[in-house]
């Protein structure tokens, strides 16, 4: 009995020691030489492996940063943001310029109310599948399909579908502007826009390229490409192309003149402080004002 125990212990010990030596030799022999800074940079990264930086993952991004050092202009980790990039720069001992923080913006206001359903979709609930099949279950062939591919693509739980409107809602706190939703949206509705001063933003919440009358028929809140906003904008931030207006966020100074001018309420202003009950803008017809106001309340 005792002998068995001793033998067992002895054999296992010898075996263990032998294998340890083999492992050590192999590890030494096949060691891959790598810049030690890659490890250090990887440590200060968020580790989300989202690919928002354009690299395959955090490790690849760390490698990319080390390779492109000292010039880190092309490297930006949207999840870590400017703070994160400062840390990376500190590890590498270089300087990096701060980037304007961005956020994903859903440019469709085709709620169930604004944009009546004209048919019923009965296939697999995926925007890509639906978009490949047809224009969607409303009269608007440009708007949100509502199957939530963006929600599935978001690794940070920042997008959710609002069951009341059938549209995705971005949680600005959680959004890291990694761009996964932008890639996932087959209708190119989601755009990364600068967060703006105190998170205040003005944007056209529509991408419908149909002519005004057609767009309006499909959706009450559609941009009809009338160009009134472009005329009223003092900073030439608005362009109208293919029957749809676009506000350049680098030029927009948040004066909100266009918001009051828009006849359909397609231009949204979010996160502006609500100052008393606003005096009604005389140019805006009644139904148009409602959706815009709703959005202000919802997103504020």
């Amino acid at each position: 009995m005792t002998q068995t125990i001793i033998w067992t212990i002895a054999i296992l010990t010898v075996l263990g020691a032998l294998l340890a030596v083999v492992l050590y030799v192999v590890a030494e022999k096949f060691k891959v030489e790598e810049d030690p800074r890659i490890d250090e940079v990887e440590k200060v990264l968020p580790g989300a492996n989202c690919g928002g930086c354009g690299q395959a993952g955090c490790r690849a991004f760390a490698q990319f940063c080390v390779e492109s050092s000292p010039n880190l202009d092309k490297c930006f980790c949207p999840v870590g943001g400017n703070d994160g990039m400062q840390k990376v720069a500190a590890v590498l001992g270089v300087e990096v310029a701060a980037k304007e923080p961005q956020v994903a913006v859903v440019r469709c206001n085709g709620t169930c109310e604004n944009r009546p359903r004209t048919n019923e979709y009965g296939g697999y609930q995926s925007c890509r599948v639906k978009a490949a099949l047809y224009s969607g279950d409303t009269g608007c062939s440009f708007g949100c399909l509502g199957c939530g591919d963006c929600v599935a693509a978001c690794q940070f739980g920042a997008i959710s579908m609002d069951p009341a409107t059938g549209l995705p809602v971005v949680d600005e706190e959680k959004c890291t502007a990694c761009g996964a939703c932008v890639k996932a949206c087959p209708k190119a509705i989601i755009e990364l826009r600068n967060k703006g001063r105190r998170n205040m933003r003005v944007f056209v919440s529509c991408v419908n390229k149909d002519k005004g009358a057609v767009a309006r028929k499909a959706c009450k809140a559609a941009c009809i490409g009338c160009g009134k906003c472009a005329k009223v904008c003092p900073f030439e931030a608005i362009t109208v192309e293919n029957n749809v207006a676009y506000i350049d966020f680098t030029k927009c100074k948040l004066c909100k003149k266009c918001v009051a001018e828009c006849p359909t309420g397609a231009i949204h202003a979010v996160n502006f402080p609500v100052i008393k009950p606003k005096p009604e803008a005389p140019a805006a017809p009644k139904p148009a004002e409602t959706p815009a106001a709703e959005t202000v309340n919802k997103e504020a």
Partner: protein
Amino acid sequence: MMKTFSIGGIHPSDSKISKDCKIEVLPVPSKVYISVAQHLGAPATPIVKAGDQVKVGQVIAEPSGFISAYVHSSVSGTVKSVGPRKDLAGNNMTHIEIDVEGDEWIEEADLSDTLVTAIPEDNKAILEKIKMCGVVGLGGATFPAHVKLCPPPGKKADCLILNGAECEPYLTSDYRIMLERSKEIVVGAAIMKQVLGGCPAVIGIEENKPEAIKAMAAAVAELQRSAKGYEGISVMTLKKKYPQGGEKQLIDAVMGRQVKSMGLPIDVGAVVQNVATSLAVYEAVQKNIPLVTNVMTITGDCLPMEKQHNYKFRIGMPLSYIAEYAGGIPEKAAKIISGGPMMGKAIANMDATTVKGSSSLLYLTAEQTVRGVESACIRCGKCAEACPMGLEPFLLNKYARNNMMDELEENAIQDCIECGCCLYSCPANIPLLDIIRIAKGDVIRIIRGRTAKK
């Protein structure tokens, strides 16, 4: 033993309810909207403008690439506008709107019923005529016919296969033309066979259409007796199995050859044309009539017998007009399909108009067509058993949902013909084809990108 393809296949009920309804001619509406995208490939470029006078058969749009086709006016009258209009999927496409005035055809068109059996000798001229008349494949893909009839240099056609399988349930338009226009179809086959260098021609028909088999065999026999250039044409009875009419499956069934992955039928010496295409070739070559009409089936289980129809329609007719003329949309219909129930397109917009390839208005009820709730895969392998390409949809589904492109390519997702057998046979209602179709597109793009780089 009757022939059929060797891998997979399913047996849905064939439901050929409207098979005894004779082809009726639809009256021309007061206005038509003719799409410039009625074929596979680049949309045609309109060559008319608002205010132009057109006749029936006049070219109104020209091809804009090698794989593209002419589009002709199906009515006579005045062009009202050229602009975007929604197709049956609701997407914008350029349509030419024409106000109908009278019914005046182009002079060269021969509208008589006389059968012209003498085949012109000049193959080049024949091909040019087929091209100029805008003939496209009417079996579903609407691939320009003249392109298929010119094998690339170094390749030779060993057999012309005429597809009369009509394996999709419900559809009866091919069946009706095989009964009513059998001789014209055979003449068309003889023309195509001559263009291809005199290879034999086989007309493949499924066993569930005995009258069509008889009619076609009789037409072949009579033409072989009475005219020259008809030798080597035969009728082959095929076992009923879906998708017999799939190009690759039909080649396997008739010739016992299989087209290589990403290859073309001509690689194994086969050219497949639908019987309706053959009829269009006859009309183009022998009668100078461009492809502006075709036959479509109005059917469905929820439609009473007297409202079942086979109509000869002209391109550009609004679908709502046809449905109205045929007696209205039945109350119980939940889904309307253009094409067969296995591969046809669900119509989202009834204001869309007919195109060259339109083959039906099929009304399906909610019980027939609403999909069941998706449940877990039980790995029964029914999808793999059903797949006529020998793929494993359960595996492709898993890889596609995880974006595993290399594995998808290894498992031949690019070979998928989108016949729908997998989704049809899945007991767990997994949307296999929905997912595979998208992933297949991605994989083919990757493959093309790779070959383009080389």
